[in-house]
């Protein structure tokens, strides 16, 4: 009897172990190996850690070297993003403002109270709406900078948005390499770190811009307290690519314009497209043509803005410009669908 029980225990134990492993397997897939958890770890690392790194920004076979410094001290975030190759352009952000130094344009752009995430970027929570248009998956692990990394892909399900591939440091979850890809998986832009330090403390001097600001023009732009005119505010996109919906509507001064533009933001939960509607000088009642916005003549056509696009057109005498880190067809689609009295409440696809 004792022997038979022992025999039973002999095969029960492996069964119990297998059962326990099977029970644990789903838990494991939702935990350490779940790509969503890795994205969340990355977001945490980018927002809460100190780091000082140099990376290559590669786009269209062109490479730029940049330095990023991110400091969190007593809950206050200060960041500096600097081009190391010639242009001398820099961004410095603190809790109060974002400043963009453009020495080649003799201009400093300032935006008060920036409501932004870290310069290196993070990804939003992936809700059901995002999952409908993107597929998240883990790719085989590999190494970057000689360190083991997790590779996560965020693939768009259609050609109206871009996707990402992220190489996350196994130990810190910092993105050592990222790629922006189109819906065919083709790389549009990539960032590769050559050096990344995560020190306990970062000196103030590492966050001071190197740009000499004497003689430069300061331009403060941002959300306007003044509303855009009723005529401008009536403009909306009447038709949108699937998944995009209106998330923000407001007024915005652009550059040195004196009249705020209507600013509409459309998003699919991950990608965003801004639409600016501006009055032509002669279309502003009572405005002096010399001071009304936009100062430049109307523009029509497509422009490349880094990895994204801007598309401008004229609608009923108003300049309409759609800008976003999305394929050209998306900004073009949205810009062309803008009209006065367009759908106020846009259907969610």
């Amino acid at each position: 009897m004792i022997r038979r029980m022992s025999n039973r225990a002999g095969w029960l134990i492996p069964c119990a172990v297998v059962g326990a492993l099977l029970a644990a397997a789903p838990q494991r897939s939702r935990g350490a190996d779940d790509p969503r958890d890795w994205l969340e770890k990355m977001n945490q690392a980018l927002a809460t850690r100190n780091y000082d790194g140099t990376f290559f920004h590669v786009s269209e076979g062109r490479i730029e070297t940049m330095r990023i410094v991110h400091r969190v001290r007593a809950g206050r975030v200060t960041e500096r993003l600097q081009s190391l190759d010639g242009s001398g352009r820099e961004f410095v952000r603190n809790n109060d403002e974002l400043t963009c130094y453009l020495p080649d344009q003799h201009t400093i752009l300032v935006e008060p109270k920036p409501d932004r995430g870290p310069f290196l970027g993070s990804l939003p929570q992936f809700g059901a709406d995002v999952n409908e248009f993107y597929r998240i998956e883990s790719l085989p692990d590999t190494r970057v900078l000689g360190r083991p990394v997790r590779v996560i892909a965020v693939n768009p399900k259609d050609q109206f948005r871009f996707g990402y591939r992220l190489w996350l440091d196994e130990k810190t979850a910092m993105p050592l390499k990222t790629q922006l890809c189109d819906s065919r998986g083709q790389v549009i832009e990539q960032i590769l770190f050559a050096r990344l330090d995560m020190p306990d403390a970062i000196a103030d001097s590492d966050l001071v811009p190197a740009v000499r600001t004497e003689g430069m023009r300061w331009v403060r732009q941002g959300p306007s307290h003044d509303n855009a005119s009723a005529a401008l505010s009536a403009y909306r996109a009447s038709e949108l690519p699937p998944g995009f919906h209106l998330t923000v509507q407001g007024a915005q001064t652009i550059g040195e314009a004196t009249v705020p533009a209507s600013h509409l933001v459309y998003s699919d939960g991950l990608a965003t497209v801004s639409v600016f509607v501006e009055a032509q000088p002669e279309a502003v009642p009572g405005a002096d043509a010399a001071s009304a916005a936009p100062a430049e003549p109307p523009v029509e056509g497509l422009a490349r803005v880094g990895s994204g696009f801007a598309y401008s057109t004229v609608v009923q005498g108003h300049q309409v410009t759609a800008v976003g880190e999305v394929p050209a067809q998306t900004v073009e689609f949205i810009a062309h669908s803008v009209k006065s009295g367009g759908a106020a409440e846009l259907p969610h696809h």
Partner: protein
Amino acid sequence: MSEQIREQISAFLDGELPNTESELLLKRLTRDPELRESFGRYALIGEAIRGTSRAYLSKAFPARVNLAIDGEPKSAGANTPRPLSPRWWRPFAGVAVAAGVAAVAIVGFQHRSAAPANGGTVTAQNLSPAPQSVPAAAREAISYTVPVASPAPPAAMPAARLTGYVFAHSRYSSGLDQRGVLADMLIEAEDQPPAPAAPAAP
């Protein structure tokens, strides 16, 4: 470029270059513009070999976009905001538009190309729905552009104005998009004449 540097670049792009050597490579790249250019080409070639580089413009590239790029007068149909078919966005016409538009060096904020010389194309591109996996996409053939003379200068948006739009947009762009927008803003405008200095200060 020496064989050693070539191997270093290759190893770096494969993620196999140790940290110390990466820093040395970085220093070299920061000092040497020609090496940077070579590095960029290597990165592009590497992606092409892996089958992930951008496919170039196809015959299917819509003429209306070419016209917009070249700044030529548009036809009556293209010049007015055209009614968009509700079916327009379905996954057929868009692929070539996206790949094509992205491939042409379009004038813009960075003014990387003052006049797009590569407007013509020789190979057709398969118009198919977006593939559901990267490996499948990677197997697709890559086509190439054939340079042709651009008959007219492009209708460029003033860089400062475009910068204003991008800066305003970056406030609302999400996550990694924002990083891309800001990093792109740092890139030097190659063909853009320097703006006159302004005495104004805050």
